[in-house]
């Protein structure tokens, strides 16, 4: 006997409440940060673009593995692609805003010679994201096989999530510490669960 309609609805409600709290919470907390007062518009946009990217990242593994309640697998897949595109835009806005604020610091980061250890993690995650997006955009045209694509995408996703979480946690900035750690933890859990789920379902398919 499967779950009842009522229990599905309760579960969906809980998932959406957790997702809303995990993303709106850190954004609201950052907006209240005293640091906002001492930063210029470009710097503030850069910071919120980074926070938005971290929030979007939480949805990617959930969409990829069909863990978002109330939408079909096909809708989830399309949304995953759109969110991926939004992630690229958010990262471009993040780096662009920081560049306007302080070009030498961004050049140091991009050349992996920054004094701050979190910079390199962010840059590595950024390149993994760009490569992932390029693969997704040109996969059909380049006739990249599904199996190879899944392997590459999963490796890149691991680098994106790992790099982003370390990057975010090491930064002393506008994000409030507890809400940031909570969001990062959820991103990690969602990624691990998605990987386990996809592997599990594929093993299951093979067994059949």
């Amino acid at each position, binding site marked *: 006997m499967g779950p009842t309609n009522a229990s599905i609805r309760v579960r969906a409600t809980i998932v959406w409440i957790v997702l809303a709290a995990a993303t709106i919470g850190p954004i609201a907390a950052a907006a209240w940060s005293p*640091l906002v*007062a*001492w*930063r*210029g518009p470009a*710097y503030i946009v850069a910071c919120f673009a980074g926070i938005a990217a971290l929030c979007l990242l939480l949805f990617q593994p959930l969409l990829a593995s069909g863990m978002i309640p109330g939408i079909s697998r096909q809708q989830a897949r399309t949304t995953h692609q759109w969110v991926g595109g939004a992630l690229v835009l958010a990262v471009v806005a993040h780096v662009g805003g*920081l560049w306007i*604020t*302080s070009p*030498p*610091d961004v050049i*140091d980061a991009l050349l992996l*010679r*920054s*004094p*701050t250890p*979190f*910079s390199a993690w962010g840059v590595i995650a950024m390149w993994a994201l760009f490569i992932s997006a390029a693969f997704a955009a040109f996969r059909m045209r380049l006739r990249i096989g599904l199996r190879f694509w899944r392997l590459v995408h999963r490796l890149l996703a691991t680098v994106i999530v790992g790099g982003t979480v370390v990057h975010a946690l*090491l*930064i*002393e*900035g506008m994000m409030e510490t507890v809400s940031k750690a909570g969001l990062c933890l959820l991103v990690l859990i969602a990624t691990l669960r998605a990987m386990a789920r996809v592997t599990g379902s594929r093993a299951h398919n093979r067994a059949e």
Partner: protein
Amino acid sequence: MTDLITTRRKLIAAAGTITVAGTIAGLSGLGFPARASGLAPTPSMRGGSNNYLPGAPVVERIGGGGFWMTGTVRRAGDGAPLAGQRIQIWAHTTEGHERDPHSHGATLSDENGEFRLEMPQIVPAFGQPHGHLAYDSGDFETVFLRPVMSSARDTSLRADFVLKPV
């Protein structure tokens, strides 16, 4: 027989003394090369020169103050304090970004080689609460420092220069 025992004791004691003395000599021997070259010059830090604006004026204080940047200037080798050396300071503070000219100022070291300049409170920027200091006056090799505050609530930051004559 007694003589022989005493002799042996003396021998052991003497051997022990020689061993200890030898070890001490050996250990201090390790220290000699460092002492010969003296106090090493401070190397520039990564990112230290970011947003540097050469020629910051010597000022009484930067902006409204409330935060102290302190440190010493000494000569490489003998460690002698260097007086009258111009140290340029800038940071992201409550009153401006690193790139704003009004965030920059300079001060001179006193006869003890010490300097202190009041400036606005440094706030975290680019992920760390940090300041920038430069010695770039030509008599010694240029050095750029980028010290990080242990807490964003600190109201002072220290950076020491050991300069190498050019």
